[in-house]
């Protein structure tokens, strides 16, 4: 008897392609994506985009810059800025993940000659870069490490004798020609936050946007499935012979899903504002514009999926797949700067990346309309294309 039930389940699964894909194709696909993200996040593949600024180049800064540019785990931006302000601007705009300022006299022990500028939303990037810089100096420039350490030892022991000083100089000269490693360099790197002073954390602001688009997509996909119910129940047949046609069905749902999405996002950001003190009111118009564009995109995509799928089960499978994959590579689960560059590039094809970027631009960086217009443009293009697909496929279905 149990065998009979087992047979039913096996045959049903084999004959329902959607369920089959869900059962066997989705898990390894999702694993590959998450493995790529998290293996990158542990440092193997994560390649931070670094804005480098050197105010006064010297032999030491040139050696360090060469070592940095040769380091495969870092992507030093092509242009070396000549001022700290330019590097800060690059980090603040999100172009670079982290900034690195080198003073000309790297061997000066009075101050920390390496300054790392960190976007508060990307704290991990600062820690990783700091570690990499110190590792590189230790590995590639042991002479610098020693020359920075020696004065401290001298002050502790009451100064070197001329003979000791001569041996030390010789050792430093020898080390500069050798690759032998010595220990960590102390007091070399200083880290500073960039960006505006805000009451809330950048991470909370980031995740408010990240979670908003995740839920927009989930709820739009789920609510759009009513389109399939209406098709199967004959409601679309009934409406199709009227003056409205199927376009009204699709457009009506599009408007509803957009309004529903806006309300959902309002609730998420209300909690962010009340509990985590994320500043929204000063940026309300652009925030609302971003929210509307993101809701449009989610609604359009949901309806496109529902119009293409023939059954609710199929729609459920495909919607789950799309939402999980888009959210994973689009930055809703893990910030994109922690992903390998190839995955970051793919991420730009998801509505998540553009939405998160727009929210972060508006709420954290305080950007204006001009700065986020490309983000909004992309979302609105996705919304229009997806809506067009939904309308045309719904019309076509009537002829089948």
């Amino acid at each position, binding site marked *: 008897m149990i065998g009979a039930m087992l047979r039913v389940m096996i045959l049903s699964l084999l004959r329902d392609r959607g369920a089959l894909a869900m059962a066997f194709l989705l898990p390894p696909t999702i694993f590959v994506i998450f493995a790529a993200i998290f293996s990158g996040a542990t440092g193997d593949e994560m390649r931070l985009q670094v804005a480098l600024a050197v105010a006064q180049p010297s032999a030491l800064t040139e050696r360090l810059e060469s070592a940095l540019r040769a380091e495969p785990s870092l992507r030093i931006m092509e242009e070396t800025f000549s001022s700290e302000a330019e590097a800060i601007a690059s980090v603040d705009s999100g172009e670079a993940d982290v900034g690195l300022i080198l003073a000309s006299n790297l061997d000066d022990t009075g101050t920390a000659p390496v300054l790392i500028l960190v976007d508060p939303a990307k704290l991990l990037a600062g820690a990783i870069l700091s570690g990499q810089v110190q590792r590189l100096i230790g590995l590639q420039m042991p002479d610098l490490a020693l020359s920075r350490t020696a004065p401290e030892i001298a002050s502790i022991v009451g100064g070197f004798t001329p003979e000791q000083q001569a041996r030390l100089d010789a050792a430093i000269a020898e080390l500069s020609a050798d690759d032998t490693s010595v220990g960590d360099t102390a007091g070399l790197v200083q880290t500073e936050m960039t960006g505006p002073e805000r009451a809330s954390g950048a991470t909370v602001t980031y995740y408010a946007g990240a979670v908003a688009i995740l839920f927009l997509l989930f709820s739009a996909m789920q609510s759009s499935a009513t389109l399939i119910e209406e098709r*199967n*129940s*004959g*409601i679309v*047949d*009934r*409406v*199709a*012979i*009227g*003056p*409205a*046609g199927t376009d*009204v069905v699709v457009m009506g749902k599009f408007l509803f899903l957009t309004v529903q999405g806006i309300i959902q996002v309002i609730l998420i950001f209300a909690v962010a504002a009340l509990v985590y003190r994320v500043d929204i009111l000063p940026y309300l118009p652009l925030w609302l514009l971003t929210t509307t564009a993101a809701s449009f995109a989610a609604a359009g995509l949901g309806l496109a999926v529902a119009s293409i799928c023939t059954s609710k089960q199929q729609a459920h499978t495909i919607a789950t797949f799309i939402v999980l994959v888009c959210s994973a590579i689009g930055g809703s689960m893990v910030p994109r700067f922690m992903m390998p560059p190839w995955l970051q590039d793919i991420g730009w094809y998801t509505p998540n990346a553009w939405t998160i970027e727009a929210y972060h631009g508006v709420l954290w960086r305080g950007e204006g309309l001009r700065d986020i217009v490309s983000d909004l443009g992309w979302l609105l293009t996705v919304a229009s294309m997806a809506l067009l697909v939904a309308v045309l496929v719904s019309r076509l279905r*009537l*002829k089948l």
Partner: protein
Amino acid sequence: MNEALPALQVLDLRTRYGSREVLKGLNLQVAKGEIFGLLGPNGAGKTTLIRTIAGRIRPVGGAVAIMGRPVSRHSMRRIGLVPQEIALYPHLTAQENLEVFGRLSGLNRSQTQEAVRWAGEAADIEARLGERVEHLSGGWKRRVNIAAAILHRPDLLILDEPTVGVDVDARNGLHEVIKQLSHLGMGVLLATHDLDQAELLCSRVGFLRHGVIAPHGSPRTLIFAAFGNQREIIIELRAAATKPQAEALQRAGFAPSNGNLNWSMMGESNERTVQDLTSALERAGLMTREIRVREPGLDSLFLRLSRDAATAARESEPA
């Protein structure tokens, strides 16, 4: 002038699904105020015909006119379609459903209110307007399903199996609603497998077979043309006939209609028929539960047409 125009006129209609021709020069006319029963076996093309009338399938030949106008978005407004499924929103009340479909059929707010009142009365659902559709019984759902299709007072009402899955009382109630709507002047095209329903309700019926409607006419005329004054003699056996018994019954002109338990034939009948037949069957060792004689109906005609088609198919097969 409009009164003289047929609600539906189909001329030499040809449709194709891929390379398969489904409708092959079909002709059909439904007058205003008339109920036309569209009969036919599964797969004969009833749904294709309805979809073509509703503008969903583009015919490869022939013409469809609604109130004298060819199928267009404008002329389709004269059609009310009652799908076989309950095409309603289950979480909404009957009233809310009607309001939604009123607006979707192009009526404004005040026209919709008036239409809901009128359709509620015509479909006799006024008492249930405030109830959610999901809580209504099958019969009431079917009534609301019809009401939602007549809000814009169409000239042609197409009903696809409107009484599937409802009990006898509900079915009779629905028959009254459909008759009432035809009295109001709507031409009704009723696609059904329920031959009793077609015989009771329809002023004319047509059998859709092999891509055309033939024969067609009033139920009584068609039945008389096929059987004249013959009566249908039906034997219900207590136990299934053995093979020799079945062969004997077939030699006598009976045909099985329900396995080997029910047998029927057309023939002349008088008051001695039942008595004589009972004795003859008992002598042959066949125990009967019931023998009855009745006037043939559309079901008898349907059965004959199916048998003729099966015989023709067998004869046309190469030996």
